[in-house]
């Protein structure tokens, strides 16, 4: 218990003081990692815990990002309206898509979630007058919270994102380890058994799906603010696939794993490409190696290595 508190305190301390030592670029990368960590953790809720392989998670991410951007640019630039609206949109889309997708299982589920996200992407791409089409919507302002520090400055923005990251981590952790979360794991392990035991399996999956959508939307809101623009790529297969990779790489079903996976992938994508043009290939090789030597993800690997010592 003591070691646990110590460890968490250490981690928190590092995250809190780190802006003072990092440069603007390094800090901005860390912010990106935190945002993607939220995205990956949200996907872990349905993928890792409930066993639903979604390849269209970017749909809720992007839907929120577009909502926040459109409102801030065209309607009213008010954080207290825009931000919740983004979350609401993410919830709405996931509620709709969940109804359609949860009629299927496994591989069909994967393909259908992919296709649904593509539909949304197509709309964003094609409905130029609303979404700016492939050019996207530039000029999204950072929210004005009426605080003495402007979020347009990088350090306050970092803490802004950090707070949401911590919030997401804590909430998701609570959900995952609550009875609700345990039922999800049970469903992943053996759906039929859960049905026989009397659980409304569909409802559990549906709620989990919407919750995952909500947190994905949170990440989407933050990403729109971070970049100052939104484009159809936020809804793309590539984005969803990145999320999937982060979860698998980090270790599905551990929450912390996907967060780590997000950090690693963002890091790799940005650093390797500085040193070689062949960074895609190297990334591919890393994925293959991780699968071969750490099929339960990096966290699984850590667990094996250090697990017994910390039992």
């Amino acid at each position, binding site marked *: 218990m003591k070691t646990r508190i110590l460890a968490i305190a250490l981690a928190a301390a590092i995250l809190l003081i780190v802006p003072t030592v990092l440069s603007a670029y390094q800090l901005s990368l860390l912010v990106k990692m935190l945002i993607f960590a939220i995205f990956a953790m949200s996907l872990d809720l349905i993928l890792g815990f409930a066993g639903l392989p979604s390849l269209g998670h970017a749909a809720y991410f992007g839907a929120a990002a577009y909502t926040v951007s459109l409102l801030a640019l065209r309607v009213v630039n008010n954080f207290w309206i825009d931000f919740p609206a983004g979350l609401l949109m993410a919830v709405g889309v996931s509620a709709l898509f969940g109804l359609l997708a949860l009629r299927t299982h496994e591989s069909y589920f994967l393909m259908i979630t992919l296709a649904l996200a593509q539909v949304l992407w197509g709309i964003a791409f094609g409905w130029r007058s609303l979404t700016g089409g492939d050019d996207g919507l530039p000029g999204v302002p950072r929210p004005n919270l009426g605080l003495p520090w402007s979020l347009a400055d990088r350090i306050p923005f970092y803490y802004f994102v950090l707070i949401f990251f911590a919030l997401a981590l804590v909430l998701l952790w609570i959900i995952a380890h609550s009875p609700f979360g345990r039922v999800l794991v049970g469903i992943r392990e053996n759906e039929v058994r859960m049905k026989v035991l009397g659980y409304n399996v569909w409802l559990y999956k549906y709620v989990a799906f919407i919750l995952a959508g909500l947190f994905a939307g949170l990440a989407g809101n933050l990403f729109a603010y971070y970049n100052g623009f939104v484009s159809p790529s936020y809804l793309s297969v590539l984005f969803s696939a990145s999320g999937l990779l982060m979860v*698998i790489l980090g270790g599905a079903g551990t929450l912390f794993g996907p967060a780590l996976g997000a950090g690693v992938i963002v890091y790799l994508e940005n650093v390797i490409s500085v040193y070689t043009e062949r960074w895609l290939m190297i*990334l591919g090789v890393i994925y293959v190696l991780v699968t071969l030597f750490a099929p339960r993800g990096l966290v699984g690997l850590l667990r094996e290595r250090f697990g017994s010592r910390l039992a």
Partner: protein
Amino acid sequence: MTFWITQLLNGVSFGMLLFLLAAGLSLIYGLMRILNLAHGSYYLLGAYVGLTVVRYTESFVYAAVAGTAVVTVLGILMERFFLRRFPKQALPQALLTFGFLFIIADLALWIWGGNPQTLPKPQVFAASIWVGNIVFPSYRLFVIAVGIIVGLGLWWLQEGTRLGAMIRAGVDDEEMARGTGVNVSLLSTAVFGLGAFLAALGGIMGGPFVGVYPGADFEILLLAFVVVIIGGLGSLKGAFFGGLLVGLLDNFGKALFPELALFTIFAPMAIILAVRPTGLFGRL
């Protein structure tokens, strides 16, 4: 009238290409429950290898043989040394095949460069055919012919041969099949190779009119996914009729409702999802 006939033939020829692409994905999934995310990469590699061979030999046939051979070998290696270790584990398989997708994509970029290319058509089909007012590229008729021949060949394999019976047994119930002496692991490798072969063939056949370029792997994978959703995973009939349906709907959709061009592929898919989630002929 001209319009309808041309569009019909277009739709069918595109549909045959889609069939080639979806059949491999579906077969592999049917037997081994592997969703091969590198399937589009097989298309890419098949087309690129074919391109190089055509440059040196001017022969479409050699290109087809080389392209399919190389990719089939690659597929077999991938299955034997990598995918085999994770039977029925969807997540490691996804990560693995994704890794290969990146590797092959970058390798292709490195070797063949980023310029978009098309495969030259075989000389005998280079011209277009004129029948009255209707003009149609003879090559596309060739694609239809190949699609039908392959379809029939696969059907015969599945229904008329021992190998096909073994595959069907393996799809239905692997344990029982093993119990009756079917060498499921050898079968798996063979089927994976076949799937890769079909994708590469798709690359060669599609090369002249769809072309090959960075990003084609993803696009083809998406198309194959849509066909398989509509036709149903694990079903040859599904791949065939799904491909045909998508090809026709896409063509007519784009020609008649150009505003919705982006959705003509996804609309039938959405309908199937609502009505029959496992696809037209899917049983899995």
